[in-house]
């Protein structure tokens, strides 16, 4: 999905807008055809979960990878989406689709609020505060058990609807395409941001804060933009998750979900967006493939994460690259030809 051809003039090593768009369109078209291959609802359910994870992980990559902001409250933004949707639809009786978008907005507002205390902070302190933020949100939800259900969670949350289409007895096809559409919108949104001037300034702040500030980039403004942008689709993903599962539980705040999603971001290789999406597929499918191992499943997953992180600091993409290089090394250096081609283009 990421292997897009031919670098372009002025941006060495980076695919052009056009080729990237074609690549993304092809990849999503391919994914849209998956229900034709997998008719069973179980596989479709797994794919829907993959799409949700992919949205959450790739949005996290925006703040963590591009922004360099160690936001450990990202899953809290997802959870806010879950509970916002639940409360809006169930307690306030708002239309599910309106609630879905509103949940994204609420998560964005929450992200802006959490950015304020971390504006002056660096590194480890950001981890601590955002972690604290997540716990604060959880405690508030727990303490308001009259409306949130506390530790019991919320059940019978209204699902989404598509005209007169029956969402329940359609073999999950409706939710599959909604999830895919959300992932598509989120991916386009993220890629547009990271390729824009705003994206460049976010990376500049991450790589050399003093210099970027001295060149007139506002740390506060960019940090708020980064976190807010990463929150919108995360909140929507949470809302979708609640609509799809028809319930909300406090488990979404747990360390295990955070660990899995963070692994997706890091295994995928940060600062790519696509890496996190690919890793969501790989990790979820890997995890499903091991369903027979029972209690050994989380153990094997943990070992896998550790091994990959130790051996390939840049994640799966680094692993693929080094395997590719090893293969390419045997095939009479085809990369030399590629480099020649780039030079030709630059000269022209």
């Amino acid at each position, binding site marked *: 999905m990421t292997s897009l051809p031919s670098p372009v003039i002025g941006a060495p090593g980076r695919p052009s807008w056009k080729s990237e768009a074609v690549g993304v369109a092809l990849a999503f078209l391919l994914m849209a055809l998956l229900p034709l291959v997998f008719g069973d609802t179980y596989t479709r359910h797994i794919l829907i979960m993959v799409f949700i994870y992919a949205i959450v992980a790739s949005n996290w990559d925006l703040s963590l990878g591009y922004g360099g902001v160690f936001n450990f409250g990202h899953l809290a933004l997802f959870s806010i989406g879950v509970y916002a949707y639940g409360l809006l639809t169930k307690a306030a009786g708002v239309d599910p689709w309106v609630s879905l978008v509103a949940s994204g907005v609420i998560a964005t507002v929450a992200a802006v609020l959490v950015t304020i205390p971390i504006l002056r902070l660096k590194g480890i302190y950001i981890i601590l505060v955002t972690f604290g933020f997540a716990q604060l949100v959880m405690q508030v939800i727990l303490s308001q058990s009259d409306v949130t259900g506390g530790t019991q969670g919320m059940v019978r949350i209204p699902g989404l609807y598509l005209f007169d289409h029956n969402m329940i007895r359609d073999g999950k096809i409706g939710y599959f395409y909604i999830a895919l559409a959300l992932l598509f919108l989120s991916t386009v949104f993220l890629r547009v941001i990271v390729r824009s001037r705003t994206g460049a300034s976010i990376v500049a702040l991450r790589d050399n804060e003093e210099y970027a500030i001295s060149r007139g980039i506002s740390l506060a403004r960019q940090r708020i933009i980064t976190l807010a942008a990463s929150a919108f689709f995360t909140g929507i993903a949470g809302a979708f998750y609640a609509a799809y599962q028809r319930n909300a539980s406090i488990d979404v705040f747990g360390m295990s979900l955070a660990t899995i999603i*963070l692994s997706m971001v890091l295994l995928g290789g940060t600062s790519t967006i696509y890496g996190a999406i690919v890793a969501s597929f790989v990790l979820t499918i890997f995890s499903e493939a091991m369903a027979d191992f029972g209690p050994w499943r989380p153990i094997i997953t943990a070992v896998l994460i550790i091994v990959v992180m130790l051996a390939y600091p840049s994640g799966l993409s680094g692993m693929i690259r080094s395997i590719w290089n090893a293969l390419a090394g045997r095939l009479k250096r085809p990369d030399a030809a590629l480099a020649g081609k780039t030079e030709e283009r630059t000269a022209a």
Partner: protein
Amino acid sequence: MGAFAEIMFGGLFQGSLYAMMAVGLALVWTTIGVFNFAHGVFMMLGAYVAWQFVSLGLPIAVALPVAVVVMAGVGWILQASVVRPLIGRPNIVLVVVITTLAAGSLIENGVLTLWGPRSKQLPSLLEGNTVIGGVGVSLHQIAIIIITPLILAALWAFLNHTRLGLALRAVAQNEDASQLVGLNVTALYGLAFAIAASLAGLAGIFMGGYRFMTPVMGSDPLLKALIVVVFGGISSISGPIFAAYLIGFFEAACSYYFGLYWTPALLFAVLILMLMVRPEGIFANQSRGLA
């Protein structure tokens, strides 16, 4: 009188456990510059290891030191396997978060597989109850309140009055210069982890003596330890110790006046407010170092 005694007692007791946990986190942070998210799992494992020895027939007075030594080994191994290989990488803070989280999940699930999900309990350090200032307390809890400051004082003396402690403080301040006076930096990293794991394990054994043990019993204490180090600053070990007791008292007072329900939310609200005013912690000074 009842209120005062209850808050004092509750604060001292919770503060003791938080201090034991937080000191280990701070020790690892100051010496190596990473955050160990498996620290809560160390606590849990310490309790289970002690339980295993007790169920083999050892008295708790023997099982406790043996388990603490085993935990030192576990800490050393964890450091050598998922932290040391990453030293020198530019994104080490982030990568160590994920490797220690994964290692924690590995141990947690290992414990679940090995010992099963059924709750267990360790024998108390001291059996019996007493009444102090109108509040009924167990001798086990009183023992913890007395033992913890002694252990923390011993740690302080070790860091400040032994050559090895001096070496640990030196590594925390300047790694290159430490190497140039011939310190074995990797061994000192291992030592920091070993001490941290022992203290966490001990806290776990203390906790297992009055509450049921589960494989996830360490996650809440880890969280509290994180809050403690945010309050106390992670650049020293005395800061977190003071902060641990302060938070213990805060919690005890909150739950007395506002109820258990609101205590965590209030705590986090105060935490976030404080960070906006004093991001480096209440007791922290500017530098990274052990004192």
